[in-house]
Structure formats: structure tokens, C-alpha cells
């Protein structure tokens, strides 16, 4: 396989990221908002893709980490005066601990049961937080850092998360664990006989996804200022991630990037029209499932072999 086309494709991706990363220099305030949302969704959907597309873990409860990460930032910043971005990282660490705890219960379940298990955990967290006096029950918290960061700083935090998510996924898939995951995806029982440690690999991915999702959520809520349990732990987050990844292409690294872009574009364009954007997303998702189940990038890869970041080493 020639190296030159690969370099071209890498350049393409690089240019996109440079364009994205320099928005504060040339873009309007609105473009900055757009880019910010794009980065946040890219990071979270990349993680969901890692779980579903590569590890076979159908998680319907990522919102557990989103809410947890967000509330960590709120509590640490407001009550203890911790520096905002440090709180986000700590939020990520708390999310990992939560994921470890969750895994004790749900890792013995398979398939849809695993998914519903994660969903139930998220609902339990929702109810727990809305009844907890420490976080002011369901009234929600305003995140008020001592020195509120500017939109540009928040944007760069989100950009770093998006880039990190991409790099982490690429590295994992190129590593031994990644090879094991792909073997597992093809045939779980056989791969176990040749020594792939399924449980360990899956748990590792679950924890990594929890960390990045939690930290990204921290950045998200610094941007949104206001967090309340009913929205932070809502199944709505999973709906968005599912759509982004299905439409973009499940099991491809570029899929979540394309999917996030389409999602933010569609919701911003139709923002004044309430729920039509979700309706259209639902229709697109079903159509894709029926017609091109591998999503945009997946079908592209299948038909033309066009990939920028291939997890395959060959």
C-alpha cells in the first residue's frame, strides 16, 4: 500500500483540525460557539463509538458520566474554589471511579441487558442527585468560577478534548488491545482461545471512555454555566450520541467526526424550529440503518476503501 496517498489523507485531516483550531483567530462569535459544540460532541461520540463499534459494549448510560463530570466541576468550583480546568480533570477521574463501580454490577450482563443496566444506573444517579441537599436538589447549580474563563479559553479546552479523544482512540486501536478488540469483534469465542483478554480489554475501554466523557462534560458545563439533574443525566445524551455515530459510521474513526458535524449543523440550522431537528435526525438514522447500515464513512470505506485513520496496521 503506497505511503503517499496516506500522507495526503493525513494532511486532509490535519488541515481540518488546523482550521478548527484557529477559529478564534478568524471566526465570528457564532462560529466559535459552533466550533465549541462540534468539539464537545466529537469527543463524546468518539468514546461511544469506541464502546459500541469496537468493544461490543452497547452503553445506553453515558449520561451517567456526563452528569457526574458536570456536577464535579460545579461542586469543586463553587464549594471548594478549585481551578476550573482542574475540576474538569478531577471530574473525569470521578467518572472512572463511577465506571469501576458500575462494572461490578453490569459487566456480567450482555448485549441489550448491559445497555439497559447502564441506563438504569444513569436514572438512579438522576434521582439521587435530584434528592440530594448538597447539590441543591433538582434546582440545579450555577457554575461560578472565581475568574470566569472567556469563550476562547473554553473553546480551546473543548478542542483539546476532541483532539485527545481522537488520539486516544487511534492509539488504543493500533495497540495490542486494539488488535484484541478487533479479533473479538469478529469472533469472541475464538479470540478468547488464542489469548485475547476480553474482560480486561472491555473494562479498559469502558474506563477510558468514562474518563474522557466525564472531563468533556466538565468543559461542557463550564460553557453552559447551569446544570440540573433532569437534563444532565437524561437519556437525551445517549440519543444524540447514537445518532451521531450511526449516521457518521459505526466502527470507523472518522465516523463520529462527520456525524458530529452534521448533528451540530442540523440542530443549529433548525434551532428556531424546536423539535424538527430531532425528527429529521430520527428519520435519517432509520434510513441509514435500512439502506447503509455502516453509516456515511462506513459505507464510503466499504465501497472505496477510503480511510484516513485506519485502525488496521496492514
Amino acid at each position, binding site marked *: 500500500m503506497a505511503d503517499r496517498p496516506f500522507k495526503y489523507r493525513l494532511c486532509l485531516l490535519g488541515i481540518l483540525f488546523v482550521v478548527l483550531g484557529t477559529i478564534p483567530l478568524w471566526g465570528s462569535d457564532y462560529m466559535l460557539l459552533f466550533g465549541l459544540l462540534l468539539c464537545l460532541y466529537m469527543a463524546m461520540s468518539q468514546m461511544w463509538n469506541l464502546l459500541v463499534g469496537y468493544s461490543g459494549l452497547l452503553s445506553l448510560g453515558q449520561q451517567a458520566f456526563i452528569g457526574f463530570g458536570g456536577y464535579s466541576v460545579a461542586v469543586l468550583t463553587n464549594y471548594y474554589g478549585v481551578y476550573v480546568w482542574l475540576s474538569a480533570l478531577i471530574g473525569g477521574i470521578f467518572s472512572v471511579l463511577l465506571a469501576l463501580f458500575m462494572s461490578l454490577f453490569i459487566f456480567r450482563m450482555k448485549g441489550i441487558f448491559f445497555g*439497559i443496566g447502564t441506563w438504569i444506573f444513569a436514572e438512579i444517579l438522576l434521582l439521587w442527585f435530584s434528592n440530594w441537599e448538597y447539590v441543591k436538589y433538582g434546582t440545579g447549580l450555577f457554575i461560578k468560577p472565581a475568574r470566569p474563563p472567556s469563550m476562547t479559553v473554553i473553546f480551546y479546552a473543548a478542542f483539546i478534548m476532541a483532539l485527545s479523544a481522537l488520539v486516544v482512540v487511534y492509539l488504543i486501536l493500533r495497540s495490542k488491545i486494539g488488535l484484541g478488540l478487533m479479533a473479538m469483534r469478529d469472533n469472541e469465542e475464538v479470540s478468547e482461545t488464542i489469548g485475547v483478554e476480553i474482560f480486561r480489554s472491555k473494562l479498559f475501554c469502558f474506563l477510558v471512555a468514562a474518563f474522557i466523557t466525564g472531563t468533556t462534560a466538565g468543559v461542557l458545563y463550564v460553557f453552559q454555566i447551569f446544570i440540573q439533574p433532569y437534563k444532565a443525566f437524561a437519556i437525551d445524551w445517549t440519543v444524540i450520541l447514537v445518532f451521531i455515530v450511526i449516521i457518521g459510521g*459505526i466502527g470507523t474513526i472518522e465516523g463520529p467526526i462527520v456525524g458530529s458535524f452534521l448533528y451540530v449543523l442540523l440542530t443549529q440550522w433548525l434551532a428556531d424550529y424546536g423539535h424538527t431537528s*430531532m425528527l429529521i435526525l*430520527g428519520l435519517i*438514522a432509520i434510513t441509514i440503518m*435500512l439502506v447503509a447500515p455502516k453509516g456515511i464513512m462506513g459505507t464510503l470505506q466499504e465501497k472505496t476503501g477510503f480511510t484516513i485513520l485506519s485502525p488496521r496496521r496492514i
Partner: protein
Amino acid sequence: MQDLLQPILNGILLGGLYAVIALGMNTMFGIVKLVNLAHGDLMILGSYLSLVFSAWLGLNPFWSLLAVVPVMFVVGFLIQGFLLNRVLGKEMEPPLLVAFGLSIILQNSLLLVFTPDARSLMTDLSVKTIPLGSSLNLPVLYFVDFLLSCAVILALHLFFKRTYLGRAIRASSDDEVGARLMGINTRNIYAYAMGIAMMTAAVAGVLVGMTFTFYPHTGPQYLIIAFGVMIIGGLGSMAGCLVGGIILAEAQLLGAHFTGPGYQLLCGYLVLLIVLGLRPQGIFGKA
């Protein structure tokens, strides 16, 4: 002990309602081995249809059942026939994701058509109460829900036992290839099964609409309840639905009694998680 009687009574009655909510989803799972993530939303669709018919014809919601049940049968038949049958295969994801997409489409369409305002199906029964002794009250509506739910479960049981279609469905679910060899068009059968499941969802929807207020987005709440009943009672078991429903409802109400109303749903979820972890096939389910 005295004041536990009311929550226990309410729990039994509410359990019946929960059972009929889960019935359709549980039966479909037993047949096609798929969890229909859109079940809650389809049930709420039934509630809204009843709203429309009741308002249009000026009828009591009970009469609207005559119209809603057939319509929901057709809806179920079409969904399975044209949508879900196409993605039934070896992989788990496509049918789940199609059902997911369907759920979102339903919720948002209902939102656009009916607005997010709270709705409920008005009936005189909603405020009637029968006092039983000095401290106990029988909420008439809950009681009616319970009776109707039992009737539906019984009817479905007889259907599967006595009718040709019922037996064909059971055959297809036990051994698809064998059933095909006997001349049964299994894809068609699945569509019929879904239609019937939707008929039970229609009844559940009307009952729920009369008992509680509903919005376009209340579907997922009932999906979790249906799932809870299914897990606790047993995957694919109809008797399990009733038992599971009662257990879940009691967990919620007794839990609320001891820990406070804010934790009502939480108690139900905890019981669900415990059963999911210890005996995922449920009380009456096969391992």
C-alpha cells in the same frame, strides 16, 4: 403496620397496570428475541389516539378502545413488516437502533402535533373512591386498571393456546426453521405477533392515559417499567408479567413509604438492578 395496608393495596392494583404495559414487549421478546425500545412510545401513541377519538366522537375513553385497538394492530403490523423484519438478522445492533430511531420519531412527531402540554383521558372514575374500613380506600380507577389488565393477560393466554395463529406464533418462536418447514410464513407471523402486541399496548395506553397525565416524552419512563417487569417476572413469560408488575409496584410504593416520595422510582430501579445482577432471566424465565 396499619398504614402499610394502603401502599400494599395500591401496589397490587398498580402492579396489574404495570403488567399490561409490559405484556406486549415481553411477548415480542419471547418471539423474536428482540427488545422493542420504542414500546413505551408506541403505548403513548395509543393514549394520544384515544385522546383524539374521545374528543372527536365525544366518547368516554373506554369506548375509544374500540377504535384505538384495531388502529394499533395495523400500526404494529406495518412496523414489524416493513421496518423491523428488514433488519432482523444475526447482529444485535440494527434492530435496536431502528427501534431507537422509531422512538425518537414518535416522540418528536407527537410533540409537533400535540404540543408538550400535559394531557389526560377524562373519566368520572378518576376521582371515585370506595372506603374499605376506617383507614383503607380503594381507588376505583386503579381497581378497574387491575381488572382489565388481568382480563387482557387471560385473553392473550387463551389466544396462544387455542387459536391457529397463536400456535403458529409459538411454533415460529420455538423453532423458526421447523415452523417454516410446516408451511408457516414466519415473517408474516412476526408481523401478526407485533400487531397483537400493539393491541395490548393500546389497552395499556388507554388505561395509563386515564390514570396518569401523559406527555409526548413519557414513553421512555414506561419503557423502563416494562423492562423492569420483564426482568423481574421472567423474559417471555405472561404469568411473570403479573408477578413482576406487582413486585415492581410494591418495591416503589413501599420504598416510598419508608424513604420518602422522592425515592419512589429509585427503589424500583434498585430492585431491578439486583434482579438483573442475580437472576437475569427473572422469576418465571428459563435460564
